[in-house]
């Protein structure tokens, strides 16, 4: 589904953010990307739907090359759902309109179709009653659930999550993770940048550990948590699992 091969990205010759990153996500797979801050994990996931450009290497999603200038990026992105750390709901639009905008403007659905789909997804994330409110009237956890629903409204073939719970108060993390776990169990292909190791243990198929722009470890979940091969991954795990 997602093929990342030998991706390099730099801002200047001396400032390399991604170094020779190669990995893949197959259909139905849930891959968790973790690593210390500044390790390039967010950058890597943003390269997948070309929100960040990269200088060399190839990324393809469902057979379409992301870095090909001929690729219709809006069309490709409409099939790749993305959830951001800071939700990024559109504050001037009501919740339901947040869900409908791209359905109507990108997929060309009618207003009725879009609203029906939107309400169905709001119900699924438990926020049907909030449809007529504005984003600022919702809690962080609710906003992130809306953001997930907004991405799902496009019927994506894969979902990217960029630290979806990092900006949340602790008591709201689980309501978002619950939605994500359900999604994973339904067979959605997911690439998730997160520090939530509980989530990784529960639903991930594979864990990728990144440090200083490199993929240091790319292993099945059992291997990663059982016996990480690299020192850096061991150190990282011991730091975040000690509490």
């Amino acid at each position, binding site marked *: 589904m997602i093929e990342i091969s030998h991706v390099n990205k730099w801002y200047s010759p001396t400032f390399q953010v991604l170094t020779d990153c190669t990995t893949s996500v197959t259909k139905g797979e849930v891959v968790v990307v973790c690593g210390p801050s500044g390790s390039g994990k967010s950058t890597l996931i943003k390269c997948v739907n070309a929100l960040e450009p990269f200088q060399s290497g190839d990324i393809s999603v469902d057979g379409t090359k992301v870095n090909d200038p001929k690729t219709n990026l809006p069309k490709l*992105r409409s099939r790749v759902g993305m959830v951001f750390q800071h939700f990024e709901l559109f504050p001037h639009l009501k919740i339901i309109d947040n869900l409908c905008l791209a359905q109507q403007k990108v997929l060309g659905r009618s207003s009725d179709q879009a609203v029906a789909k939107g309400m169905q997804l709001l119900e699924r994330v438990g926020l049907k009653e909030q449809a007529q409110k504005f984003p600022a009237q919702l809690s962080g956890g609710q906003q992130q659930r809306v953001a997930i629903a907004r991405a799902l409204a496009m019927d994506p073939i894969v979902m990217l999550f960029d630290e979806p719970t990092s900006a949340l108060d602790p008591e709201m993390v689980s309501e978002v993770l619950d939605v994500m776990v359900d999604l994973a169990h339904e067979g959605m292909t997911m690439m998730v940048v997160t520090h939530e190791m509980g989530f990784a243990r529960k639903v991930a198929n594979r864990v990728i550990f990144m440090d200083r722009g490199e993929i240091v470890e790319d292993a099945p979940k059992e291997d990663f948590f059982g016996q990480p091969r690299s020192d850096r991954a061991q150190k990282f795990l011991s730091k975040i699992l000690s509490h």
Partner: protein
Amino acid sequence: MFSNFDFGVIIRALPYLFYEGMTFTLLLTGLAALGGLVFGTAIALMRLSGYKILGRIAGVYVDFMRSLPLVLVIFWFYFLVPYIGQWVTGASRPISVGAFASSLITFIMFEAAYFSEIMRAGIQSISRGQPAAANALGLTYAQTMRYVVLPQAFRNMLPVLITQTIVLFQDTSLVYVLSITDFLGAASKVAQRDGRLVEMYLFAAIVYFTISCIASFGVRRLQARIAIIR
């Protein structure tokens, strides 16, 4: 102290002042603000676009317009455009451009420079995550601007935009250099015809002051309301 003054002259001149003068002033203000906003937004988008050349062109335009006194631009434009028109179309005589059209175009060009800076600040006030989220949903650049970025930028900047329009409302009085009958022009004509300079200019000042004051008060109310919504 007012014993020598004849305020009746104002009342007799009211229909002329408002039907002719104020109508022109408000029409010019409204159309110039609208045109300035449209072109100003376009210039702001040029400056913020990734294309260096577009940005430079817009930047030079804005700096150029802001470095000239408005009165000069009005004056020059009125006298130059007929010749430029002649040169462009190859006509044998200078092309006649009406005073209204000439002043309207001047004000739109001039205000576009100011509105563009306001819109630029407004667009930059939107966090980068917003266009990223819109792009991630598959919206094109134009759709992202139209449905996500500009509505928010416009809303954030509305008080400043209206304040600039109040300034524009006052600035339209500068068309007197073209002997156009705007509100001040009308007052001035009556004043000189009847020899009642003090009364008419006093009245004109009161009218400009009142309208601007009410509009400013409206802006403050609006600001308070927007602050609650956000």
